[in-house]
């Protein structure tokens, strides 16, 4: 029992590193070119342009801050909750663009990610991240009894 919990703690530790690295990288690439990212968001045609521009400035930093927070036990649950929510929103946006026949790059890893990744791959990547974040959040909420590798 204790052995399997220890294995779970090691897996959770590895998953936290992956989640933090992916979101800090994704946010970092977008922070380099917020104007390009604004166009990538605008391509989805879900928001009026000024809102897309505001989101293009805010979202990358939210990804970086929440991604990094996954490595900090004091705010880990909050970070994972935000990242899970973001993954859900991204999945909705990707599906909605595909249903409307929009031929756009997903913009997930920066505005210059043009025509490189199909919507199916982008969605799959997003769902894997969502599952990782949700599982980590559930793991963290199991309470103080579970063994932890911080």
């Amino acid at each position, binding site marked *: 029992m204790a052995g399997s919990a220890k294995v779970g703690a090691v897996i959770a530790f590895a998953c936290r590193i992956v989640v933090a690295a992916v979101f800090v990288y994704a946010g970092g690439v977008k922070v380099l070119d917020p104007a*390009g990212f604004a*166009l990538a968001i605008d391509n989805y045609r879900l928001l009026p342009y000024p809102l897309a*521009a505001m989101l293009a400035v805010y979202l990358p930093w*939210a990804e970086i*801050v929440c991604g990094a927070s996954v490595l900090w036990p004091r705010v880990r649950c*909050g970070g994972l*909750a935000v990242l899970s929510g973001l993954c859900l929103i991204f999945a909705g946006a990707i599906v909605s663009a595909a249903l409307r*026949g929009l031929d756009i790059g997903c913009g997930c890893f920066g505005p210059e990610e043009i*025509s490189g990744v199909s919507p199916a791959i982008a969605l799959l990547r997003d769902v894997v991240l969502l599952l990782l974040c949700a599982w980590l959040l559930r793991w963290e909420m199991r*309470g103080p009894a579970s063994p932890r590798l911080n």
Partner: protein
Amino acid sequence: MSQQPSMLGRALKQAGVLLLAALIPVLLTAAFHPRRPAWSRDQAMVTEVTLDTLGQWRGAVLLVDARGAAAYERQHIPGALSLSGGKWDDLLEALAKEWRPGMRVVVYCDNRNCGASQSVARRLRRELAVADIYVLKGGWDAWLEAQKSGP
């Protein structure tokens, strides 16, 4: 039993703190980032031109196909050069050899629903310092339609 709700409440509080903390770099980015977005669509977007306008232009025009290599290989507007995300550096070099200062550049992708022409045009303006750059309204579909309806 009461642990779950309190954990949830704590997680939401932490989420709020993190989202507020992100506002500090956000404000700095909005104020000072050299590539901060324009706040109006007209300023942000590369100007669109119709095929009719394109036909009326005098002087050399360089057409750029932003649809991706496979679509370009199948068919493209005569004289257009391919430039898409895949092999950007190689393709940009080929394009830079063709482009002369003062030449207009028009980028197209599939149709009204594609975003690649805006992204490529924007990147081209930045990396090749092309000032006279446009996006073809309706893209490849508009050109095909014009071919069907004749001159």
